[in-house]
């Protein structure tokens, strides 16, 4: 078994999974399914401190630093956003901070979900990606 997959490997895996579906409808159904299995943030942490303001839908995200790696728990109140959050977390979870800082999420384009990353959708996803990178920048000693 390989040790830790790189971002590129993780992204490729997701793109391959989504390629199994013929139409957008099934892809969205699968996305929502992935959202259900997201490592969810506990209700007690669904607070202002961990909330990402999205206007239309909200995202909660909490980092957990272990050595130089960052793990995430998250959730959203909208099913599609939750699925997208699950994808982002899946790509980044447990990686080194430096890797997270450079992540670009081009794979969302390849699976036909890129539109959701636009800040004008006001769904919290683009702000979440910003926040993920901020967390990766923060001092590990905290």
């Amino acid at each position, binding site marked *: 078994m390989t040790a830790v997959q790189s971002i590129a490997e993780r992204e490729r895996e997701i793109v391959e999974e989504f390629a199994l579906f013929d139409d*957008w409808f099934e892809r*969205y159904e699968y996305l929502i399914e992935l959202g259900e299995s997201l490592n969810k943030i506990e209700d007690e942490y669904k607070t202002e401190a961990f909330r990402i303001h999205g206007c239309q*839908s*909200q995202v909660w995200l909490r980092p957990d630093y272990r050595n130089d790696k960052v793990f995430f728990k998250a959730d959203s109140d909208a099913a599609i956003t939750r699925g997208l959050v699950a994808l982002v977390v899946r790509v980044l979870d447990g990686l080194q901070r430096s890797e997270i800082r450079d992540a670009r999420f081009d794979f969302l384009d390849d699976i036909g979900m890129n539109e*959701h990353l636009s800040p004008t959708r006001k769904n919290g996803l683009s702000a979440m990606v910003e926040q993920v990178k901020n967390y990766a920048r923060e001092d590990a000693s905290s």
Partner: protein
Amino acid sequence: MSELQNPTMDHVVKSNISELSDINYDVESVRNDFPILSRKIHDQDLVYFDNAATTQKPASVIQTLTRFYSEQNANVHRGIHTLSQEASDAFEAARGTIKKFINAASEQEVVFTTGTTGGINLVATALSRGILRPGDEIVISGMEHHSNIVPWQMACEYTGAILKVIDVLPDGTLDLEHYESLLTEKTRLVSIGHTSNAIGTIHPLKAIIDLAHSAEALVMVDGAQAVPHESVDVVALDADFFAFSSHKVYGPTGFGVLYGKKDLLEMLPPYQGGGDMIETVSFEKTTYNTLPFKFEAGTPNIAGAIAFAAAIDYLNEIGMDAVRKHEQGLIEYGLDALGSIPGMRIIGDGCPRASVISFLVGDIHPYDAGTFLDRMGIAVRTGHHCAMPLMNRFKIPGTIRASFGMYNTRSEIDALVKGVERVRGILA
């Protein structure tokens, strides 16, 4: 039958006319006048139900815009050359068309703005310049669009005036008893929407205005959502100020109208300073132009004004009453059809409404519903509709809003119902 026991001639004649126009309303021919309606979205026929955000434009409006820029373009009120004269004439003729459309008494009462937001900010800012005093009270409602809330909050901040808010009842109407209790000798102004953009409620505007006037308060009306759907008569309403946007009435964006009673507009200090709004300028003393130009600093949206007049001509040709009747038919049909979906919650159930149905289905998040519906070619609005206080009032994060226009059809509503059913299948 009970209705007929006490008929007024007026009522009988009107209802006959509107029934006739309903039969005669040829929605397919109206649709043919709107080029964008033949677009496909995600390979599906476009169903455009976001008319409360902005309406589509008929070909005559689009042609007027291109004709202006290809044949007539010049600045207005400034040159004696032919083009400038032609542009100025067309621009002022548009004012005449608009004046008639809202039945204003004079063209001096028709101020051109950038939109509803521009009109409300004009009045709020001008009133903040030496007219509003600390302790004065401004009354708005809990159902207002942010653009009829924030300018008044700003005015209060600058002047020390106090903002009072009329409660919204669970059925989506305003609490008129509460309104009456808010009217005191301190009330200087009531600023109220005619029709709610978020849930569609039509307010009893005439009664609201009369009550304000008997308390000697002025009334500003946010007419953005009323003008597209019914014929508005600012004189019959006795509104002191009335603002609306061209783009919600089948005209171009970036143009709007502020109606104001002449003596009140005379009384208000100017809003923005610049060209066109002055009579003479010197460093000792500048004197201002007459109405309506006193409020029209800078080069206006000339093409916008002229093309908006084309939109009004188009509406007049179809007939505002026929449009209203058609849309009321859509609302009734839509309430019925959507109402049959399990888990359906229509916000403001039971209020008299214009062309808006705002709803939630079970626990389905509006964002999810909106995304799926878009994939099916159906454009609805999701979110708080710039009325966050109203959403908080109903303790909801937002709604799915279908808003109808003159070109929408019952079969489009069927498509929406089918779409919502499909979303339910995935998410409920």
